[in-house]
């Protein structure tokens, strides 16, 4: 499962002073590039290299953004999109967790289903969109369905992989205590899987967002930010199109930030702690009995 870089946890192992120095210079570099981009965004459209109609300046976009958010009518679109994302994410998460657990606790089911998982993983899922539009029409249900299909997959796979993470030694330890199947699941497998499940859930929220926006652009009926962007672009109102994109960026970044905070709360034991135990396990297993 490839995971976008933003979803990965930061390495906590870096020495504090080094980390400080890096964030310090990182901030300077970041601010400089932002300044350069803003400057280019003002200069290039004004220079006549590209038409200002197609490529508005930063100032145009900010003005349009202000017009958009003070306009009021965008709120219903925002609500439509976010409701669909929320519903799709919850359904996708529940479905993914359910399938992941069903498959994660049984090696047999895993083997049976694995070929389908691989096939489905390779499939560009958006190709299923016409199917759902055909089945469910141009309304919100097809939008949600498309997003669910796109977003449940990482939750499913990450849950499944996560549940298979515990080592033989960990199982043996609980077996020596005569732990029941359910206790092994609750006390070992589920906590072991949680860090990966959290990554899957984070991944899923962005995929649900993507799914909803694509569905809105494809079947522009039920309203939403995708519908809005598409209709603005169709009227060559590029500053407003960019303004919608800006809104999408804000929402996506905030969603990831919120889930990051949640992740640190829920799976507080670090990657470092996990890695350390598994290194010890590898050393032991190399020796054999």
């Amino acid at each position, binding site marked *: 499962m490839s995971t976008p870089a933003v979803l990965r946890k930061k390495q906590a192992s870096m020495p504090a002073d080094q980390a400080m120095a890096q964030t310090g210079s990182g901030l300077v570099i970041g601010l400089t590039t932002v300044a350069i981009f803003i400057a280019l965004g003002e200069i290039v459209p004004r220079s006549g290299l590209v038409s200002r109609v197609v490529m508005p300046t930063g100032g145009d976009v900010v003005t349009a953004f202000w017009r958009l958010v003070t306009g009021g009518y965008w709120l219903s679109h925002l609500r439509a999109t976010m409701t669909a994302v929320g519903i799709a994410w919850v359904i996708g998460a529940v479905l993914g967790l359910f399938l992941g657990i069903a498959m994660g606790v049984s090696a047999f089911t895993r083997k049976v289903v694995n070929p389908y998982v691989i096939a489905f993983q390779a499939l560009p899922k958006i190709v299923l969109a016409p199917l759902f539009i055909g089945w469910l029409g141009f309304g919100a249900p097809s939008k949600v369905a498309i997003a669910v299909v796109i977003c449940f997959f990482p939750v499913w796979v990450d849950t499944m992989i996560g549940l298979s993470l515990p080592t033989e030694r960990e199982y043996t330890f609980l077996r*020596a205590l*005569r*732990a029941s199947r359910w206790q092994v699941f609750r*006390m070992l497998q589920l906590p072991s899987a949680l860090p990966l499940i959290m990554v899957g859930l984070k991944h899923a929220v962005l995929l649900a967002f993507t799914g909803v926006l694509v569905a809105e652009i494809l079947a522009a009926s039920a309203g939403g930010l995708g519908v809005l962007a598409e209709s603005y672009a169709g009227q060559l109102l590029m500053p407003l199109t960019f303004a919608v994109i800006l809104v999408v960026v804000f929402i996506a970044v905030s969603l990831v930030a919120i889930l990051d905070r949640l992740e640190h709360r829920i799976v507080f034991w670090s990657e470092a702690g*996990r890695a350390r135990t598994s290194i010890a396990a590898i050393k032991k297993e190399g*020796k054999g*009995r």
Partner: protein
Amino acid sequence: MQEVTKAVLVEAHGVSKQFQSGTSKVVALENMDLEIREGELVALLGPSGCGKSTLLNIIGGLLTPSSGVVKVAGETLTGPRRDIGMMFQTPVMFPWRTTLENVLVPVDVFGWSRKDYRERALELLEMVDIQGFADSYPWQLSGGMQQRAALCRVLICDPKLLLLDEPFGALDEFTREAMDLELLSLWNRTAKTIAFVTHNINEAVFMSDRVAVMSSRPGRLVGMLDVPLPRPREIEIMRTREFADLAFTARAMLGNQ
């Protein structure tokens, strides 16, 4: 000193174990007889591949012997027993549980009340000198501290028999020695029966009442070595003539295969 009149706690008769690896059979253990009496501290000594861990896992009920019988407290063994505590070379510590919560894992598994055992867990942690780390997470602990916590966890449910598989083998020499001494003083106080696996001759002689010397491929009992050294033992005992003789005998038995 342990008296011969003590009751037999573990009885292994003609225990063999074969593992199937591909098409070939590996005989890990062949026709092994062993008796461990109550309150005894017995070492299983041998080179790697002599089946000493296999034997320990069989006594712990984690492996079934291919043939032979193991009786614990007079009952034929059919699986893991809750009055047997097992400890492995590298401790299994759950990173999402604090040290105290890790010590309480058996209590959770047995469905006992955590409240009733919290006090005892803290006492045990104090006994091995890591009470200050009760609320720390395992990854914040050194290997030695983790192993101490694992020892507390074995003791929390007060088992009759402790089976330790190279318990301090992954630790450095100094820490291992310190842990050995701690285990000895603990054994003195609690009068538990302990069987432990080691490939270190000095450790085996220093710790035990008796040493089961084993040979490899197939794993077999070469002989039992009685260690009549006085107790309590200090590290200095390793400098005595008697200790050197015993260690030499054990070495000779290992070499005579």
